[in-house]
């Protein structure tokens, strides 16, 4: 384990940024946090987490896949991928680090999504332990320890210092490059912090939210429950929950006609939208209740069914904080869980 005084944090950021693009949560004009590229003068936000999740780094909201250039009767297919440099994401919370595992199972299993894989291979993740979880946090429900976040390097921050532990080869290499600014230390302080965080975890109001009653094979049991009517009755059908969610991974592929070429791009889609998965025959889900049900069944039943029981929720609490009508996965789990 190595540590660095917080007084030197900007030197540390500058050192990382020498070799790779560095992104970290910075404060926006409205006071919230967003991942922004570090540059001299950037201020690291104190917020618990960013409004947008870090999934953008590997699965951006919009990305061009290819371009078709037409000339006369010939069509040329152009690869629009740009060469990618290494980049470092700093300050990723334990829940969000776990979300990358959820996305990996979708994008890195055959057929591998080469766009996602390329970004993933270039990214180094420095995670950060949570010191003050919010009332909306329920990562423990999914077996995540906010005091011991995964990632290439794990970090713990105190009032005066920041501690680092490398977990992967990528992480070790990066930490070695920072050796002039860090010093070797034991894990006494970090152990104390872990203990403190775990005490807080026992006080969180959502600590008892359970996945009991959900998981693979539960489709028949849960699909036609009358509770879906009540749960979905106020849903506006907006995409806030899906777009702030670190694990929502559905996208649409569309063609954009530029006049003399066609750009094929993909963009995030939301199962809450009326034209989600619209096909030649029409739409699969005609009511908001069906769309609403799809989102939670996907996270709590269909995904685990296809992924060895892993749920596609990490308990980050963004949907709890941001839904315009305050309906969310916790309310769904409490209402229909264990039936």
């Amino acid at each position, binding site marked *: 384990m190595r540590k660095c005084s917080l007084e030197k944090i900007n030197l540390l950021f500058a050192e990382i940024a020498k070799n790779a693009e560095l992104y970290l949560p910075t404060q*926006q*004009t*409205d*006071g*919230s946090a*967003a991942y922004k590229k570090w540059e001299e003068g950037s201020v690291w936000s104190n917020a*618990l987490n960013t*409004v*947008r999740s870090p999934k953008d780094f590997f699965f951006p*909201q*919009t990305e061009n896949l290819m371009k078709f250039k037409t000339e006369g009767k010939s069509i040329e297919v152009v690869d629009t991928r740009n060469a990618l440099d290494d980049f470092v994401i700093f300050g990723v919370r334990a829940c969000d680090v776990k979300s990358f595992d959820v996305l990996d199972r979708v994008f890195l299993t055959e057929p591998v999504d080469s766009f996602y894989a390329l970004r993933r291979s270039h990214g180094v993740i420095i995670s950060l332990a949570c010191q*003050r*979880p*919010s*009332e909306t946090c329920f990562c423990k429900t999914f077996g995540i320890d906010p005091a011991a976040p995964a990632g290439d390097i794990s970090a713990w921050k105190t009032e005066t210092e920041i501690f680092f532990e490398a977990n992967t080869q990528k992480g070790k290499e990066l930490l070695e490059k920072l050796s002039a600014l860090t010093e070797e230390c034991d894990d006494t302080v970090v152990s104390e912090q872990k203990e403190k965080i775990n005490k*807080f975890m026992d*006080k*969180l*109001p*959502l600590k008892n939210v359970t996945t009991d009653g959900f998981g693979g094979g539960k489709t028949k049991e849960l699909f036609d429950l009358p509770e879906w009517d*009540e749960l979905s*009755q*106020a849903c*506006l*059908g*907006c*995409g*806030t929950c*899906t*777009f*702030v969610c670190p694990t929502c991974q559905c996208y*649409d592929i*569309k063609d*954009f006609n530029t006049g003399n070429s066609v750009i094929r*791009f993909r*963009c*995030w*889609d*939301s199962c809450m*939208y*009326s*034209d989600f998965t*619209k096909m030649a025959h029409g739409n699969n889900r005609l009511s908001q209740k069906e769309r609403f049900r799809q989102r939670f069944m996907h996270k709590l039943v269909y995904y685990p069914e296809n992924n060895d029981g892993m749920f596609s929720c990490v308990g980050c609490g963004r949907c*709890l904080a*941001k839904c*315009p*009508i*305050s*309906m969310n996965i*916790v*309310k769904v789990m*409490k209402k229909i869980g264990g039936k």
Partner: protein
Amino acid sequence: MQKITREQLLAKASELLSNGTVSCVLGWGLGEFDYDVTPTIFKSVEELENGFVFNDFCGANFSKYLVNKTAKLEGKILVFLKPCDTYSFNQLLTEHRFDREKVYAVGIPCEGMADIAKVKAISGDGIAAIGSNGDKLTVTTLYDDEAIVIDTNEVLAERCINCKSKKHVAYDELMGEEGDVTQSNRFDEVARLEAMTPDERFAFWQNELSRCIRCNACRDACPACTCEKCVFDNPSSGVENKSPANSFEEKLFHIIRAYHVAGRCTDCGECSRVCPQNIPLHLLNRKFIKDMNEFYGEYQAGAEVGSRAPLVSYTTEDLEPGEVFNRGENNA
């Protein structure tokens, strides 16, 4: 902070449900915490007793729900309307969006609603409980031994700081005291933007709208946005898009929407309340309202049922396009 209590509203709802005046109640439903209130349909007194809440976080405007909730309704629905909600209610009636006969509207007074983000900016994360006592909120957190006392004026939602009216313009029954149209400073911020140079103003909106994630919450919560199929959701429209492909498109969506609701927007502020990125979208709509007031005389959408907005009501007194053009040269 609120002068009317949960118990008074609960008693009213129970009475109207029990005596058969209404078959269901559209009210605020209890959440996991003291602030995450969900619009809920209550069908029995028991449901009301278990789940009905009313506190300083009941900001949601129920008017738009009436479009869907009355469509196949047997009997009447009771809806609680704060003064600002009644303007949306009237505007929707003007546009024939729901059947007035199916609604029993109860006007309730409102002292302004709190913004949980502002509360958290003071108390920090980890809220255990929020109590209300006169004009103070008492916030207990998981991390502090003593409760944090906050003056409610410090955490009022943006739209409530500039409340335009405490007067109800529609109801079947009124609870509490009727208020007046207030002299708000709601156009001050618009005037500040107008005073900027075009470059400064562009930079302002560029910064604000760059945070847009195109979740459509502003549109979906907006009582003026009740098209059955929005052009932005319709692949055949040619302009449909699910995400901001570039920064130009981000702006286009919001500007088109502002044009579409111009003259119909009552300035209820739902767009900014629901925005997950805190973009002050209401300022776009307010700019249109301010301009219309200046060009055509004072007009408040929803103040009465059936009124025609200046933009759809031609008179020979209307200002010539040239005058608008000249005004544009003065940078407004």
